[in-house]
């Protein structure tokens, strides 16, 4: 999939949903719980089918990155499956927030 900033993606296997904040230029495979994510705002499953190796869980509001690929997604709905890009599990970004400006 070629990802686009602002695109919303949903898990096919649990409740996870994310929005793309930074998109790699090339085609990539974004998975949740080991299964390709699809376009959508809400996850399509209940997480019961996730194999142990692919559990990890995305937390609501947290950012997940793959710095090498320049990918950043933000979790809009939490779930049990681990987020991965081309098989590499995404890291939680411990962002230093900007001071609130408005």
């Amino acid at each position, binding site marked *: 999939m070629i990802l686009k*900033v*602002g695109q*919303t993606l949903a898990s096919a296997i649990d409740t996870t949903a994310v*929005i793309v*904040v930074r998109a790699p230029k090339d085609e990539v495979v974004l998975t949740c719980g080991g299964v390709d994510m699809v376009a959508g*705002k*809400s996850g399509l499953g209940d997480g019961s089918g996730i194999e142990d190796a692919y559990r990890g869980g995305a937390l*609501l*509001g*947290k950012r997940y990155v793959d710095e090498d690929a320049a990918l950043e997604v*933000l979790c*809009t*709905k*939490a779930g049990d499956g681990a987020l991965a890009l081309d098989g590499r599990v995404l890291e939680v970004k411990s*962002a230093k*927030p*900007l*001071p*609130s*400006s*408005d």
Partner: protein
Amino acid sequence: MNLTMLLDMAVDGFGDRVVIGRRDGGITAAQLNDMSLAGAAAIRESGADAVVYLAVNGPAFPVAMFAAARAGVPLVPVNYRLGAEQLQSLLANHPRALGIAGEAQSAALAQAGLTVLSPEQWLDTARRPIETTADDPGLGDDGAPAVVIYTSGTTSAPKGVLLRHENLTSYVFGSVEFASAEPEDAALISVPPYHIAAVANAITSLYSGRRTMVLEQFTPAQWLQTARDERITNALVVPTMLSRIVEAEADKNVPTLRSLAYGGAPMPAAVIEKALQMWPEVGFVNAYGLTETSSTIAVLGPDDHRAALASDEPAVRARLGSVGQIVPGIELEIRDANDEVVGPGIAGSICVRGEQVSAEYAGIGRAVDERGFFNTRDKGYVDDGGYLYIGGRMDDTIIRGAENIAPAEIEEVLLRHPDVLDAAVVGVPDEEWGQRIEAAVVVRPGTAIDVDELRSYVRGALRGSKTPERIVYWDDLPRTETGKLVRRHVLERLVTQVEKV
């Protein structure tokens, strides 16, 4: 992509937290969500294609914003102090809107043929029980903008800026961390709802989980009292408000205040220095942005303020007068008159690109070049450390003989004088020079500085050619409600006023 995604996240993350109004009896995130659903149903029932908000800021405002978002129609907050003619012509753009208006303005809306509700009636409508499910199929990802704000028109006739859902959400995701506020945090807002800062604040506060309270009528004493009573931790003001607070004869203790953000107009150095010394525990934040950029594109944070205040190095000290560094997601270029990009230290037009940049005007389209850059028409430069300095609007430049002069430079000098509270410098038509420099100054009550003394003071800091030929004393300067100087009114008054006071 829709603003309501932020509200959905807020419900999931902290649904029972009060996010609007007083801690006791305020509206929780879950309640705001319910109200957005009922409000959206009411909007659809009425067949409205927009929601015009012509009232003071208050709980009805964010409810209207999210209800409009759920209904897929734009929210159009309008300045309730506009003259009848201007208001009429603006309302003519939204003949099928649902209106929410205070008593004094509802007649104007009814006259324009709109259905009008008072803010209280609107809130009652939104509190009706809902029958629809949370997942509303009626949302369009395409089409209607989330918010339409008419620019303040300080230099020309107001234009409607179309802020799309993608612009606003991209701004929020780029600069705010979800649920980052503590449950005890509370923000005090004193900017009017038709200002981009109020729109942005409603969204960023909700997303960060911070309760917001509105102070409708600003007086320094009321602001200070409210901040204490409500145990306010964050505040948003415009520079003229901070100036008045700093000058006020009142108890200025606000023990709970941790962060104060300001913007909307230039901040005089003397005012921010006094504020920093008055409240050393408070983190000050200068935010620079435009309606067209969904508010903040550059931030001077608390550490920047303190480092500048404490520094002996002129280059660092000067940063107190900057608007800080650009935010993630924004690309910045300073361009000269030939549209060529210039490097640090050289002034030119501030141009920006990014997902949060709308730059889209109703009936006109996006004002961006082929690379997607928007020219803000603000003049500025970047220092070696990436700190952005604003030098005023391109259109304000005075051309005297062959020289281009920025009023901001002269105003800054005037404002450094201890007896000067406010100053405006404009170019007045002159047969010999094209334009000559004149200034309108507000002096501190009780002082009586001689005009020639003041001119000498300016000449001592700048060249003779940058000294105002005439300085007049006024009781106040024509500024908008958010403190922006209306230069063309200064010019009009100066041209018709022949003698010095």
